[in-house]
């Protein structure tokens, strides 16, 4: 679905650089939008759009570093690639320390930018896929009853039905029913699948 059509967000206060980047994105057959300031982007920001950000680091008003900070506070994991001028190397280093994906010095090589963007998009795609998986597991877990939770935890801890029955002071048959409900609700058919699934949210 949208995973296959990631969006490159370009943020640069310089009209010409912004337009040129949009053109380059088009030639790379990438889907891109551009903003003239970090503020403008933040006001329209949605977390569920996959892709990456290509932003100038030095801008009037909200700088690239401030943008990175604010996005991180909002829980965004969208990778940021910074483009910098000559004098901004210390700033770029700081950005990288704070988790920026990469930085390129203007004027940059298009292939390098494309590689950075592709790798950033790939990382974002992977991160989002993982997040989605966790969400789906959590939503399945949420459908379990309190008793089923208890049984699930003991199963995951490697206990036998018999041991569980004894611990919960229930019949062996009841545990078997709970256990089959758990497998059904968690949408797995084998114990191994269940354990792999649970490892994802551990």
């Amino acid at each position, binding site marked *: 679905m949208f995973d296959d059509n990631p969006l490159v967000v370009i943020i640069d206060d310089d009209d*010409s*650089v912004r337009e040129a980047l949009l053109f*380059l994105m088009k030639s790379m*057959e990438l889907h891109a939008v551009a903003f003239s300031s970090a503020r403008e982007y933040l006001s329209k920001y949605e977390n569920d759009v996959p892709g990456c950000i290509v932003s100038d680091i030095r801008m009037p008003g909200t700088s690239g570093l401030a943008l990175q900070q604010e996005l991180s506070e909002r829980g965004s994991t969208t990778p940021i690639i910074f*483009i910098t001028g000559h004098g901004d190397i210390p700033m770029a280093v700081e950005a990288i320390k704070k988790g920026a994906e990469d930085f390129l010095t*203007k004027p940059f*090589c*298009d292939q390098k930018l494309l590689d950075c963007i592709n790798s950033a998009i790939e990382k974002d795609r992977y991160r989002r896929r993982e997040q989605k998986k966790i969400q789906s597991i959590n939503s399945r877990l949420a459908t379990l009853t309190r008793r089923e939770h208890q049984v699930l935890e003991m199963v995951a801890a490697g206990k036998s039905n018999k041991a569980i029955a004894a611990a919960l002071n229930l019949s062996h048959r009841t545990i078997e029913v709970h256990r089959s409900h758990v497998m059904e609700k968690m949408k797995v058919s084998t114990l191994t699948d269940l354990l792999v699934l649970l490892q994802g949210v551990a």
Partner: protein
Amino acid sequence: MKLDGAPYDLFSAVLDAAVDGIVVIDKQGAIQRVNQAITRMFGYESEELVGKNIKILMPGTDSDQHDNHLGRFNKTGMRKVIGIGRELNGQKKDKHCFPIHVSVGHIEDDLLAGNGSCFIGIIRDLTLQKHNEQQAQKKEAEIQQLRERLAHVARISTLGEMVTGIAHEINQPLAAITSYAQGCSRMINAGLKDPADLLPALSEVSAQAERAGKVIIGIRNFSKNSQLIRQPCDCNELVKDVVVLAELHARELGVSLVLELADDFVVMVDAIQVQQVVLNLINNAIESMFDAASDKVVIIKTRRLDSTTAEVSVCDSGAGVDVKLQDQVFDSFFTTKDSGLGMGLSICQSLVEAQGGQIRLSRNPGRGCTFSFTLPTAAGG
């Protein structure tokens, strides 16, 4: 001294005591009498002059004219020198020419009991005065030259401080050009069907190259070592042109520049020097807000004060100036910066004064301060 064997009377004593040269000639220009100052001044003995035409004391060019002047006056009473003073050249016995001031009076015939009307010339030697004037002019020219050289050095140093911003401003169009060119290559490699699709990108490439070129031209003009030339300039254009340079520094420090310009008017100034002052004041304003958290705005205003004066002001919301230091800011070597010679405002002041204006500093009611300077408007501007 005796003349024509006449007794040495009070009249002669007065003539000879006069510091200026005095010469009496008749209607035809023949010298009747000279005082001692004349003989000293021109190197002739009195006897060598009496009876000769006054032209003997004039260099060739002036003497050719003299008969005409004299003839005309005698005929028409029209005055060229008579009654009025004028500066001429005298010629000594050794043919050496020197500057003199001559004033001529006319003595009517009837006053002289039928001896015929005559003229009396008072001649002052201007050699020393001219020499002093020349010396003063030379000195003034030297000072002017030094001032220009200092201003030039200051301009270069201002540009030096702005080098990061300048590099950025040239780098931006280069980055855009690179991206367009690479995009075009990609599209061609991907089997572009219609080459015309590349035209918008290509026109951007040339526009961006021009933009970089303009920055370079601006810097080159600004860094030129030129003599002061005051000519009519559009005040707003002058400010706008230099704000382009100031933007480089402003962007770097996250400061926005706001222009509040009056309706167009023309000032009589040396454009580069005034721009230097404006740039210096804007740069100071930008740097004064280095620590400010927000509202980093510099307002640049132009306005007419009256029919002969305009004012340019630069207003910041920065740290301001200590009241105690307010009077010192225009002094040489006064600085509050860690780096800096403290020459900036002192040079600004001398540049503004060279245009015939005045610069002053005032504290804003809220934060920061305002530097404003006046400039003469061009007549009819």
